[in-house]
């Protein structure tokens, strides 16, 4: 119940698709999605494997609430060893693909090996088959999805695919589903491309059952009411999207600007949610066309945007003059503030290209920021860039680089390396604003102290979604803490990390936790699933997952030394705003964190801790 209790194992080398039962003992310990798939991955691959070798595996996983009536119950994840990081990768997406996989009767798909030629996986309820994808290889995500729907005469087919970025080995290529939802981070699309797997197309008509439908409808209805009545999930996110944060974070002095040289961006309001709502002169419309929801989501933070038809990016290109996935806060920051670009339509266009070609706008934008700094220093010149001027705030350079990166052409191929390899190549590794090779998202750790610890300890490299202490430090959820103080942040980060581990394993969206506590979540899982799903057990599952991910990384060769931040955040003080004069106090927080985690001073989980968590 709620779990389909079936796994599809696809051996790409042999071209086989086999059904096997879900390990229900593991499901009781890891719940589903992120946790359960991580367990499978850890059991099945050598952590030291090259992420792009056939020995790496790629798991597409849903949670027990995916496809149910629970609000936001459309989440799914990709778990693999990340191409960008070499660490455990778990990239989470929404849209409709995950629910469809559940409707077809599958909890997970485990891809292993490498196909000798490009293929896509077609799943129609119980029937799964690998199909020749030579006609789709070299095509964009958008062409692939439309093509597969037409080829199979089924507008309801749900597709997750890679674009050219995943084919040509852009290190931060993602997997895009439903045209503009993405498992975007850590290079999970690069791994998919390395396996010659172009797409997964799913149609499910079997549905998802829950253990106790009446109790479940009651629990989910009550929880939906909580979302509706909450100021963030009921008003802020539906009206403004995640972009509601742009001006807020800028005012906090925590909006990383020009590769983290600054912490405030003068152009922030030009690329904010408010700007997306403004009516433009050319066609009397706004950038924001409407808000769109993922499957089952009663929040609806998704942005659907239309670029000004007179804008340079689209005026001669009708194919981009339609509505599509608009700017979320992280993308707007990475494509905008990180490079000093304040042209809203240029950012929207670059975001379209990220979706169309399947790559992560955060890592892309941040890498462009690093390259612009190298250009400013004269380390990179127009000889390297093929004539492109990588000046701060240059919108045309940004959009050109987006297109080149997507295709792996020209200087775009260098951007496709990610900031770590790019800055190493040019001899300035300190200028990569990343942890474990993955670029920071949109919160400067000098202005929001807890996020520094979140980034440094994140198992998949720098990430806001592994412990979003911004909720507490800026928004006051569940209670307000001082963003400029590192006191008590170790405990706060751990609480967020463990709770997030459980949420990411359930099939629901972490945004619900702006309104929901675990007390709202546990009854929904308990009504849907067999077993004891108390708040305590869920937090234990979250902690178990965190430690398992940590163990994978340790076995892969990472150590406590990798739990750090770039020098810039630790040494160069913020120049303006509330955080002026501050650096991130990681050195103070990290030992406390290790101790609270039950890890050694070197950051290794002790045997006691592993034993307590049955690892």
């Amino acid at each position, binding site marked *: 119940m709620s779990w389909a209790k079936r796994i599809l194992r696809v051996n790409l080398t042999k071209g086989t698709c086999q059904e096997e039962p879900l390990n229900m003992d593991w499901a009781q310990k890891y719940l589903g999605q992120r946790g359960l798939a991580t367990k499978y991955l850890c059991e099945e691959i050598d952590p030291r494997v090259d992420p792009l070798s056939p020995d790496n595996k790629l798991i597409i996983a849903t949670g027990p609430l995916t496809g149910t009536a629970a609000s936001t119950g459309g989440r799914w994840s990709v778990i693999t060893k990340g191409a960008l990081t070499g660490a455990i990768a778990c990239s989470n997406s929404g849209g409709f693909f995950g629910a469809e996989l559940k409707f077809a009767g599958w909890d997970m798909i485990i891809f292993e090996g490498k196909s000798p030629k490009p293929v896509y996986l077609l799943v129609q309820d119980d029937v799964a088959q690998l199909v020749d994808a030579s006609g789709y290889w070299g095509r964009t995500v958008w062409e692939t999805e*439309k093509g597969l*729907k*037409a*080829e*199979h*005469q089924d*507008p309801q087919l749900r597709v997750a695919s890679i674009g050219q970025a995943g084919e040509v080995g852009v290190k931060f290529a993602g997997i895009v589903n439903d045209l503009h939802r993405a498992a975007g981070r850590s290079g999970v699309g690069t791994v998919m491309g390395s396996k010659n797997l172009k797409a997964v197309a799913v149609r499910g008509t079997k549905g998802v059952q829950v253990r106790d439908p009446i109790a479940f409808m009651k629990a989910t209805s009550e929880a939906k009411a909580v979302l509706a009545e909450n100021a963030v999930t009921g008003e802020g996110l539906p009206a403004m999207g995640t972009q509601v944060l742009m001006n807020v974070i800028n005012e906090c002095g925590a909006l990383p600007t020009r590769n983290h040289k600054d912490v405030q961006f003068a152009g922030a309001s030009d690329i904010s949610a408010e700007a997306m709502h403004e009516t433009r002169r050319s066609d009397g419309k706004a950038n924001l066309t409407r808000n769109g929801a993922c499957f089952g989501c009663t929040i609806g933070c998704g942005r659907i945007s239309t670029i000004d038809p007179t804008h340079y990016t689209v005026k001669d290109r009708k194919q981009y003059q339609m509505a599509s996935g608009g700017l979320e806060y992280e993308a707007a920051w990475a494509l905008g503030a990180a490079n000093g670009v304040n042209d809203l339509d240029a950012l929207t266009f670059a975001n379209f290209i990220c979706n169309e070609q399947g790559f992560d706008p955060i890592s892309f934008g941040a890498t462009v920021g690093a390259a612009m700094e190298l250009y400013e220093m004269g380390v990179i010149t127009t000889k390297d860039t093929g004539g492109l001027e990588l000046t701060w705030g240059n919108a045309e350079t940004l959009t050109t680089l987006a297109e080149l990166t997507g295709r792996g052409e020209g200087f775009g191929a260098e951007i496709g390396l990610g900031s770590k390899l790019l800055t190493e190549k040019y001899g300035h590794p300190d200028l990569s604003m990343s942890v474990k090779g993955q670029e920071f998202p949109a919160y400067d750790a000098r202005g929001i102290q807890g996020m520094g610890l979140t980034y440094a300890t994140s198992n998949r490299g720098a990430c806001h979604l592994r412990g979003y202490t911004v909720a507490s430090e800026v928004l006051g959820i569940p209670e307000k803490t001082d963003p400029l103080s590192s006191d008590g942040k170790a405990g706060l980060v751990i609480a967020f990390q463990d709770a997030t581990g459980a949420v990411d394993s359930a099939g629901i969206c972490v945004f619900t936790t702006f309104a929901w506590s675990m007390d709202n979540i546990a009854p929904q899982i308990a009504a849907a699933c067999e077993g004891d799903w108390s708040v305590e057990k869920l937090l234990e599952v979250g902690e178990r997952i965190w430690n398992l991910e940590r163990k994978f990384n340790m076995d892969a060769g990472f150590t406590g030394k990798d739990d750090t931040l770039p020098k810039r955040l630790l040494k160069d003080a913020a120049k303006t705003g509330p955080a002026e004069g501050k650096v991130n106090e990681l050195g103070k927080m990290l030992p406390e964190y290790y101790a609270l985690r039950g890890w050694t001073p070197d950051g290794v989980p002790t045997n006691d801790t592993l034993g307590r968590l049955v690892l």
Partner: protein
Amino acid sequence: MKYVILGAGPAGVVAAETLRKADPSGQVILVGGEDAPPYSRMAIPYLLTGKITEDGTYLRKADEYYDRLGILYKRGRAAQVDPQKSTVVLEDGQSLDYDKLLVATGATPVTPPVPGLDLKGVHHCWTLEDARAIAALAQAGSNVVLMGAGFIGCIILESLVERGVNLTVVEAEDRMISRMMDETGGDMLKRWVEAQGVYLLTSTKVTSVSEIGGSLSVSTDKAGHLPADLVVVSVGVKPNTDFLKGSGVAIDVGIEVDDRLQTSVPNIYAAGDVAQGPDFGGGFHVHAVQPTSVEHGRIAALNMAGADAKYRGSLIMNVLDTMGLVSASFGHWMGEDDVAVMLDQDDHRYTKLAFHGDHLVGALMLGRTDQIGVLRGLIQTRVRLGAWKDKLKKDPSLIAQAYVACTQG
């Protein structure tokens, strides 16, 4: 006002109900030719599989339905109509006066000129009586030869297979359901039924049926002799109009009617399979399908009761489930050059859309059932497709999207 309705199929029954509403004080007599309450031939295949019993085929289910509505349901068959005297004479000699007469006598199956079709063990599949005879003979393991793989042949094919008989289908045309499917669709259907163990002979004629030692032998022009315990004949139907000889009612293929469903003789109307009614695409045709019969019955009755109801024409359409593969056809799918086609042989899916200018005029659909009604909507509303024509040509599966976009904008 006294209304007489000849024929108690869907057209007749709907006409009776409509008359009752439109003229509460009028006298309504419904004359049916069979030994059962008004029933639906559409339901006979489900009777044969045992999915329903005979009462499951009845057009109206409530007890004493016709009595309670004040409709006199009468058994009988018309022998003659005399417009001068405004009377109908039934086969049993009884005479009925009318002020307004509706001819809704439907059609009867054609018996081709093949020797031996009068033998015991040879049946049409048309009436409840036929169904009872077929059910008795089509036992598990018995040999059955089905003559004709048209709509009716196909609709009973599954019932026969489900009963566990050894089935051979002999069709003179080069494909199945040639009236409602083109060659591509017919071929797909053929492969589908063959894959399920049906022996299908197309472009093959039955030359004679004979009785040898208590069972039948079916001789064909190309496939030799086929042993049979039962032969089912379904090679087409013709409108029941013989009794109108001498009445002055003009008859072409069916009874000629105008757009108010009145025949060439005042006070006599025709509806359903017997009527050659206005066609949505222009002209007048016999469209022997359930929705048309019902519309005919209603429009004819309104006019009989004194309203001025104009019929804008029937759209020929059909849906058929052949052993799980569903096919549907709408309107003018043949003869148009401007078409969109999507074919997936492996998945048994086929779509063909036929356009005329900015409009959809016809469609074929195999292997899809969801939302197919919009094909009727798209054709019959004559909605301008605009940009959606191009989208449909690229991806014909977007029919529901096109309908919603064009009509709900």
